[in-house]
């Protein structure tokens, strides 16, 4: 059985973590597959990526049984996560985490490394790491405080409480919560909406916002002016203008 399913359709690449018996616990093999799939997602025909889990939940985090009874170097093992997290952050197109059921530990880390999180009403999030005496990893120390602020990030990381979907929404950890029975449909709808948008521009927006996390106002003003120059030369911008003048909906190509 493949641990990561890939399905490409209408510009939407759906990556499904597929170890349902463990709520898609992450193994070295799955991380390698994820890393590869994210790299391949840079192909121009992919305009949006959806990351989801098979079965009961999104992802329960690192598979603790993978190294049971062994002494492993966490530092070395985290290299496997690094390429996935850097891949998600560097991929210049929208990546949606579609979270149903549990998103725990490094599973939550991966969801936070995506650009948008849409949660089913039954979703339960937890940082989890501190429950086994570990600190958050896989980029959570970067993403979490940027989303919820230091004080809340500290609380979530230290106490590892269960965060229900509505609470996650209030915290700003997820963008949307949708009823469980409508979840698949809402995810598909959002993915389709994005895939029909000016996806090259979305990539530039992502590059700008990612840069802004470590730039001054002056640097950002200079960098965004250049990125706007790039966006301004895109076919989609021309189409957007044209559609505006002609009072019709634009047909974006992602170029």
């Amino acid at each position, binding site marked *: 059985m493949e641990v990561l399913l890939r399905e490409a359709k209408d510009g939407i690449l759906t990556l499904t973590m597929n170890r349902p018996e463990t709520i898609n616990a992450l193994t070295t093999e799955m991380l390698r597959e994820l890393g590869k799939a994210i790299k391949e997602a840079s192909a121009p025909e992919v305009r949006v990526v959806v990351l989801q889990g098979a079965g009961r939940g999104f992802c329960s985090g690192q598979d603790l049984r993978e190294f049971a009874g062994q002494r492993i170097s966490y530092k070395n093992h985290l290299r496997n996560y690094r390429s996935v997290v850097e891949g998600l952050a560097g991929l210049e197109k929208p990546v949606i985490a579609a979270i149903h059921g549990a998103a725990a530990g490094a599973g939550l880390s991966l969801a936070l490394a995506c650009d948008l999180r849409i949660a089913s009403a039954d979703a339960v999030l937890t940082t989890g790491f501190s429950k086994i005496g570990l600190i958050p990893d896989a980029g959570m120390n970067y993403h979490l405080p940027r989303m919820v602020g230091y004080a809340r990030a500290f609380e979530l990381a230290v106490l590892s409480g269960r965060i229900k979907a509505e609470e996650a929404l209030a915290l700003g950890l997820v963008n949307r919560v949708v009823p469980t029975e409508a979840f698949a449909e809402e995810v598909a709808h959002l993915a389709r909406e994005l895939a029909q948008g000016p996806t090259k521009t979305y990539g*530039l927006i992502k*590059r700008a916002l990612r840069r802004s996390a*470590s730039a001054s106002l002056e640097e950002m003003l200079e*960098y965004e002016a*250049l990125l706007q*120059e*790039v966006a301004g030369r895109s076919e989609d911008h021309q189409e957007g203008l044209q559609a505006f003048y002609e009072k019709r909906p634009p047909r974006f190509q992602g170029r």
Partner: protein
Amino acid sequence: MYENIRVETHGQVGLVRLNRPKQLNALNTATLGELAQAIGAFEQDGGIGAMVITGNERVFAAGADIAEFQQTSLAELMRGLRADQYEVLRKVRKPLIAAVSGYAYGGGCELAMLCDLIVASDTARFAQPEINLGIIPGGGGTQRLTRQVGKYLAMEVILAGRVLSAWEALQHGLVNRVVPVELYLEEALELAQTIAERAPLAARLAKDAINRAQDMSLEHGLGLERSNFLIAFGSEDKQEGTSAFLEKRKPQWKGR
């Protein structure tokens, strides 16, 4: 005609593109020779005020040509052809700008550092991985990188093979600007044109003073600056520049 590079003129800017894409623009002796020749020709061209060296979006230059190195004996290398070519580039008097995107490794990083300004794309990466081949940088890497980023980071880059991203390079003063990959060459050409439109004699004298600043005590450096200042002060361009400023018009430089 050149085999390993392409040469273009954009306004008052001479552009040389390294063009061995299959070899990742590896700087073999022939390529370095053509580069030195093309830059030398621009140096003599009165219509050119600055030069840009670039590769392509994916790779600036991924080092020396390892296959060629493998075949080269010590005696051949000691004839100094490569060193002479680097010297030609180093002694260019007009401003030289590197437009770097993708890999600038080994000789590629050294070539960029030999230039007077570096415009990097946000995908640029700088490294000196020579130690993996049992050698060390031989085109100025140990000297220029150390002067630019300091001893400790230079040690890590050259001994441990650390790769610097574009933003890290900016943070450590190794590049002037980081710009979107889509625009790096345009931005470099624009910067070059801006410089090319300045008084050519003054640009040359300023470049000379700045480059020699690193080798001199402050006292000697100030002495050199004074000499260069006096030369500029005696130029026709100084008369033109000051007059144009007072008359609120654009100066017409003569380069003398």
